[in-house]
């Protein structure tokens, strides 16, 4: 168990990379920086592979590696410790693996940027925090990573901070995450207060003995879910994710694919016992998930910014994952996390490649016909699109259908909406593909002149990811196709708790399963074909910004006005409240009162000094009044 005990190396490498790149950002040449940045992740990846193999070979499936006492008071003890089990080891692989590819890709993509060193240091830091999130053996360490990735997303989204709207997007991402984080934090408190520990092992062991539907568990899971909503961009906290496109494209890939947004899913899978024991929360998770999925998909169909489309697709796919969680298909959800990591990273990097070629143009209306100029990008992107659309045998198909199958068992309605979402997904993805790569070029002469395929540092990751996107589904081939779902088997230990083993619903009839698959695949293909007829055959190009639309497409185009509504019901009232508090209450009422006391004294002084009239007669008169008063008092008190 050599490597498992050395698991701290995994986050250490990125941390070291961060420090070297961060401190040497102005000194080191770009080549060195890129090398160090990528190498650090590669090393982590290698160690992760080692850990994975070791774990696979081992009989014990859970390892606890304490590092040091972090917070230790009379009443609270939070060790800084790591936990290795199938879930974390597989997440390690994904994060470091895809992270590495994105690093490599970035070398090419960011070559010309001034903040190259800064960029790589942030990237390394990002991976570092993500690794903490995954490795933490308790909720608090998880929370470090949880907030850490939020910070890094802030830094990276706001990487080009001179653009005010980018900076605002960064802030939005952070703040929205923080809303969720508060929920998470309170959940941690409740966990601590209930179980006396935040260690996963302790908590789950005790939780397994609790009754299903326990109120405390309901509280805990609800609040954890709030955290997950924020991190994984579910309704109502999803609006930061599309805005997060402001960062460099590889960052989007990192955030959307491998890291950060999957944190919420990871956390719920990690806490599966708690969630399983509070069915109410699970229902809510499913409902939120499916609504997010369809809403985001509906928005994506009318977006024109290539990255925005992908962003909403991420939100939508995350909705799927939550649907999966909500219906108890934890394995399915993780499966989708994995496949999504492959194809979404791929798609983003492809989009990055396109944007790179287009000299930072992101509007699909100005693209088109890039198939010839960017062949590798096209092919890989096609693979990604097929995967996300759920076309068999690409990876997305398996994971998505596993979730849908479980959803069907829970409620056919969920399944129906899921399938509709799948249709929409297929439609907008192919729409994007067609608009970008087919027909003639719609951009400027200059852009056309510069069109070129990306350098090898960018295309090689694309190819690798494409292969993963195509074949990634193989790790979870369902029984209906004769597979034995390796992933499910591998993950099984994390669902085994003393006295309670969580299993997904009883496997359904194989024929039903096949019919369901057929319906969703058929729908996806039809949608793809419709997109083909509309955008390739029909040469339809999305209307310019100002043009009039019918209600539905207007809603979609304007993202259902969610941002505006938030601004209206939260942003502006808060600002108004702030002014009100400041001007009326603080300055007016409270300070007014305090100053009023002073003023009253001063005015009182003005009045009282008139007593001192300067007239002796008056003085003596007052004295006599005083004497009389005293005498009268004395008269009554003798």
């Amino acid at each position: 168990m050599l490597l498992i005990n050395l698991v701290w190396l995994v986050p250490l490498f990125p941390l070291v990379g961060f420090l070297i790149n961060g401190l040497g950002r102005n000194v080191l040449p770009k080549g060195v920086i890129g090398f160090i940045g990528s190498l650090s992740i590669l090393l982590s990846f290698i160690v992760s592979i080692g850990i994975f193999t070791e774990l696979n070979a081992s009989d014990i499936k859970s390892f606890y590696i304490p590092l040091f006492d972090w917070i230790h008071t009379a009443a609270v003890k939070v060790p800084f410790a790591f936990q290795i089990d199938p879930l974390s080891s597989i997440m390690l692989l994904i994060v470091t693996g895809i992270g590495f590819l994105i690093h490599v890709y970035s070398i090419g993509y960011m070559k010309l940027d001034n903040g190259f060193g800064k960029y790589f240091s942030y990237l390394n830091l990002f991976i570092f925090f993500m690794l903490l999130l995954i490795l933490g053996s308790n909720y608090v360490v998880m929370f470090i990573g949880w907030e850490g990735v939020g910070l890094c997303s802030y830094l990276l989204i706001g990487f080009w901070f001179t653009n005010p709207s980018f900076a605002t997007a960064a802030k939005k991402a952070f703040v929205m995450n923080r809303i969720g984080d508060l929920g998470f934090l309170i959940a941690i408190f409740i966990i601590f207060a209930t179980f006396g520990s935040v260690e996963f092992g302790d908590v789950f062991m005790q939780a397994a003995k609790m009754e299903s539907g326990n109120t405390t568990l309901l509280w805990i899971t609800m609040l954890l879910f709030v955290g997950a909503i924020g991190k994984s961009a579910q309704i109502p906290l999803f609006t930061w994710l599309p805005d997060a496109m402001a960062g460099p494209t590889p960052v989007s890939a990192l955030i959307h694919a491998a890291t950060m947004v999957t944190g919420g899913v990871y956390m719920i899978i990690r806490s599966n016992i708690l969630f399983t024991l509070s069915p109410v929360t699970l229902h809510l998770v499913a409902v939120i998930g499916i609504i997010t999925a369809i809403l985001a998909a509906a928005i994506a169909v009318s977006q024109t910014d290539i990255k925005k489309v992908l962003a909403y697709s991420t939100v939508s796919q995350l909705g799927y994952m939550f649907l999966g969680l909500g219906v108890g298909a934890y394995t399915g959800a993780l499966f989708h996390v994995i496949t999504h990591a492959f194809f979404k990273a791929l798609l983003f990097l492809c989009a990055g490649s396109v944007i790179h070629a287009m000299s930072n143009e992101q509007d699909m209306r100005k693209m088109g016909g890039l198939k010839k100029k960017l062949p590798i990008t096209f092919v890989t992107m096609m693979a990604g699109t097929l995967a996300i659309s759920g076309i068999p045998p690409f990876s997305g198909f398996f994971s998505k259908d596993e979730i849908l199958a479980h959803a069907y068992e829970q409620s056919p309605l969920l399944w129906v909406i899921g399938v509709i979402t799948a249709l929409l997904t297929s439609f907008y993805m192919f729409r994007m593909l067609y608009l970008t790569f087919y027909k003639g070029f719609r951009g400027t002469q200059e852009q056309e002149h510069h069109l070129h395929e990306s350098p090898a540092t960018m295309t090689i990751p694309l190819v690798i990811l494409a292969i993963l996107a195509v074949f990634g589904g193989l790790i979870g081939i369902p029984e209906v196709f004769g597979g034995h779902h390796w992933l499910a088997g591998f993950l099984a230990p994390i669902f085994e708790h003393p006295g309670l083993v969580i299993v997904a619903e009883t496997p359904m009839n194989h024929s039903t399963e096949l019919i369901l698959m057929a319906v969703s695949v058929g729908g996806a293909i039809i949608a793809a074909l419709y997109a083909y007829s509309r955008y390739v055959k029909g040469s339809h190009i999305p209307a310019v910004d100002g043009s009039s639309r019918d209600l539905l497409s207007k809603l979609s185009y304007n993202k259902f006005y969610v941002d505006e509504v938030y601004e209206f019901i939260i942003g502006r009232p808060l600002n108004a409240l702030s002014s009100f508090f400041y001007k009326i209450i603080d300055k007016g009422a409270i300070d007014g009162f305090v100053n009023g006391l002073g003023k009253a004294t001063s005015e009182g002084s003005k009045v009282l000094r008139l007593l001192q009239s300067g007239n002796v007669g008056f003085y003596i008169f007052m004295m006599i009044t005083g004497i009389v008063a005293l005498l009268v008092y004395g008269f009554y008190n003798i």
Partner: protein
Amino acid sequence: MEILLLIFLPLAGALISSLFGERQQVKTLAFIWSLLSLGLTAYLLSVFNPESSAPQFVVDHSWLSYYGIRFKAGIDGISMIVVLLTNGLIPLIILSSFKHTYKRPGSFYALILLMQSALLLVFTALDAFLFYIGWEASLIPIYFICAIWGGENRIKVNMKFFIYTFAGSLIMLLGIIYLHLQTPDKSYDIQAFYNLSLSTAEQGWIFWAFFLAFAIKMPVFPFHTWQPDTYTEAPTTGTMLLAGIMLKMGIYGAIRWLIPVAPLGFEEWGQFALILAIIGIVYASIIAFTQKDVKRLVAYSSIAHVGLIAAGIFAWNTNGLQGAMIQMINHGINVFGMFFVLDIIIRRLHTRDSFEMGGIAKVAPQLAIAFLIIILGSIALPLTNGFIGEFLLLFGIYQYNIWAALIAGLTIILGAVYMLRLYQRVMLGTTNALTVGFKDIDGTEKLVLGVVCALIIIIGVYPNPILHISEATVKSLVEMVDGKVHGISTTF
């Protein structure tokens, strides 16, 4: 004996500094002198036994014998924390003022050192009268610092500040005298106060008498209106002293003199105080949203942060208190760093209006990084110092009441909003005519900010040594009060 040295060393420094008059070399002297204090503190820390909850290094001399007043001082875990904060921060504060050429530097630095003496007196006093003396004595130097070297509106603002805080402490004095009169052997000893068993009604009054003083000092809503103005008008050094150290007097007082002395009063009114503190958190945070003036914004943020600490104290459990202890240090460091960054900016731009700034990160990346780290510390990002404190505090509050924790926890969100807003306005965006020539930090600025950032991260990553200092004391204090409240007499 060490305590006497600790208290009077800065005083001697003050006397020497005051002889310097107009010569700027006094800076170096004051800095070195404050390092001496720091060294002494380090020594005390090394011989300090954190396992014991009793005061250590106690000195006890007769002082005003007729009234049973003694010069009694000592350091226990709680004191140690604040002493550490005071003596650690003062050198930084002095160092941070190196770029300023204040007129009459001799008096300026003398006042700072004088203030240090008074603060140490407050933090080590074990005699109520002595405590009060230090409490008031610390007010005078800061008043002069703020009023002589402050901004345009300084006179009026500082007068309000002075009278406001003085008002609170006078009422406290009455409370102290009252308690003294109730002690069987007519003493001002803290132990004698702890041993009193007054009726609930009496304790209620005592609670208010003390609470007012502490609430004004911290400040807790709605006794805070002196604070933003004062922070804004004061010279940055003064603001640092005020926010970094002085407001801890209120917190410290509440822990040491308020709740243990009037436990039943606390039982009766503590909830009210907690609610006030929590209101303050949200209220000040929301106000901070729309502040243009950077110093004022940070001032309001400080109200919010201190509100959280206060709430943690009034929740009165080990977590809340330990959180308060460490958060005192953290807040000291963070707010100091914050004001120092703002000072650097204001000194270069001659404006406090955040809307006139922008894009500084582009021209001064090092400053931007430091500022970011400080902001992260103050919005309690994990692995920064603020997190440890806020985590424990919120946990403490949670143990008191979940809704209180939820509302107090809003600070996590709201804090992020206004701090990042500030950062965005000041640092991000494009440079304008004013900020384009902004020079990045150098020399002492780098040193100070480096130390601050390092502290923020070190404490965030490995807070245990600091937590450990106060652990035993906090525990025994909580037990004592709980014992009193529940009618079980336990000896301290």
